């Protein structure tokens, strides 16, 4: 179970290599499907990136969506159809908005699509029962950070579309980046598959996951699923935050203050104007 992931993939590939119709069997096996999905999705993203591809961006959108559907077919069901539908609605919205953030030319639209992505992740947090994080993401990220980005964009963006928004880096770096993302996703899918195998092999002992929590809760450790999903969500989260993580809270507060002072001191330096840095 602990062999390296790439080795596992190679083993799966070599198992089907010499046989009749082996290529098709490999494509249908989970490893092959993950690889195919990542390849198709990466090609779609590459097509959608700014930089004048011939077939148009909707072709790329279709490729990326096809990759996502293949990946979704690999995942286990969530149990109830309602939960499944809700999850895929929110997750699909999040991923589509994320792809649009990366691929839109106009940076203002990029920021707005990022705000949609953040709303989607807030929905994912809510579906996981992390209510505070869902609300905090909407308030802090979508409400404050993205709006600040929009302010800076309005301040700094030249009128009209800048040439550097219409192109991305050359084709080779773009393909490399997409392949990196691909490798990441394939590795994750394999890690997740390993996880499923490990869980099927033997049930986890409760002490394994509750070890850290039991140290706080003392001898009366809660049953599984009753800590993070407790109805008193905020009270428990606040209790954890201000007991176990108190020093971290203080450090974070100090860090916010330092960042504030630093940003002011950076922004209030007298500008020296252009110094011939342009390259075109």
């Amino acid at each position, binding site marked *: 179970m602990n062999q390296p992931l790439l080795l596992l993939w190679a083993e799966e590939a070599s198992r089907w290599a010499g046989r009749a119709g082996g290529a098709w069997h490999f494509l249908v096996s989970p490893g092959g499907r993950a690889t195919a999905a990542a390849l198709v999705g990466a090609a779609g993203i590459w097509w959608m990136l700014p930089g004048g591809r011939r077939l148009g961006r909707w072709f790329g959108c279709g490729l990326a969506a096809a990759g996502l559907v293949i990946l979704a077919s690999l995942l286990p069901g*969530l149990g109830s159809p309602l939960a499944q539908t809700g999850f895929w609605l929110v997750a699909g919205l999040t991923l589509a908005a994320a792809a649009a953030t990366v691929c839109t030319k106009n940076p203002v639209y990029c920021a707005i699509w990022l705000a949609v992505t953040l709303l989607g992740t807030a929905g994912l947090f809510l579906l996981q029962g992390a209510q505070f994080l869902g609300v905090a993401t909407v308030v802090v990220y979508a409400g404050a950070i993205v709006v600040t980005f929009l302010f800076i964009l309005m301040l*700094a963006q030249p009128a009209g579309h*800048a040439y550097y928004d219409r192109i991305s880096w050359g084709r080779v770096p773009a393909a490399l980046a997409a392949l990196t993302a691909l490798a990441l996703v394939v590795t994750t899918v394999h890690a997740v598959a390993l996880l499923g195998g490990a869980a099927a092999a033997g049930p986890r002992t409760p002490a394994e*996951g509750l070890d850290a929590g039991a140290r706080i809760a003392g001898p009366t450790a809660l049953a599984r699923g009753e800590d993070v999903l407790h109805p008193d969500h905020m009270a428990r989260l606040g209790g954890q935050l201000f007991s176990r993580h108190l020093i971290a809270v203080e450090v974070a507060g100090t860090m916010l203050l330092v960042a504030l002072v630093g940003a002011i001191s*950076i922004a209030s330096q007298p500008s020296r104007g252009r110094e011939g840095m342009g390259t075109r």
Partner: protein
Amino acid sequence: MSELALLQNYLLIGALLFGLGLTGFLVRRNLIVMFLCAEMMLQGISVSLVAWGRYHDDWGGQMLVVFILAVAACEAGIALALILMLRQRSGSLDIVAWQQLREEGQARYVDREVPEEREEPPQWPRLTPAGIEPPWDPDEALHRSHV
């Protein structure tokens, strides 16, 4: 098994978000868009952390995400101030403007093909014409449907 299925689903979404953000960070050239993509990578990590926290029934994942929020706020403040300074000095948001910082033996990056900007006619919203007086109806003046 449902908890495990939930974890697997969320891990995949987190990885996809991280991968998309990474691709954007490596590929896009606008400083601000690069920074937006970095924020997206943070979101991918947050989704995975919350999923692991739920799976292990432990608050550690959510705590880390709370601190990620704080760090992201600091980072956004500092980085935006820096981006403004860089923009003042180089005159554009293009990251290529700073390729003077490259190593000695590295070749200079030159844009080969900049696609033409397609002039699309702006589409203005169609408003109903305002300021035209409706035709005078004596009946309506006498019998108002509302007061």
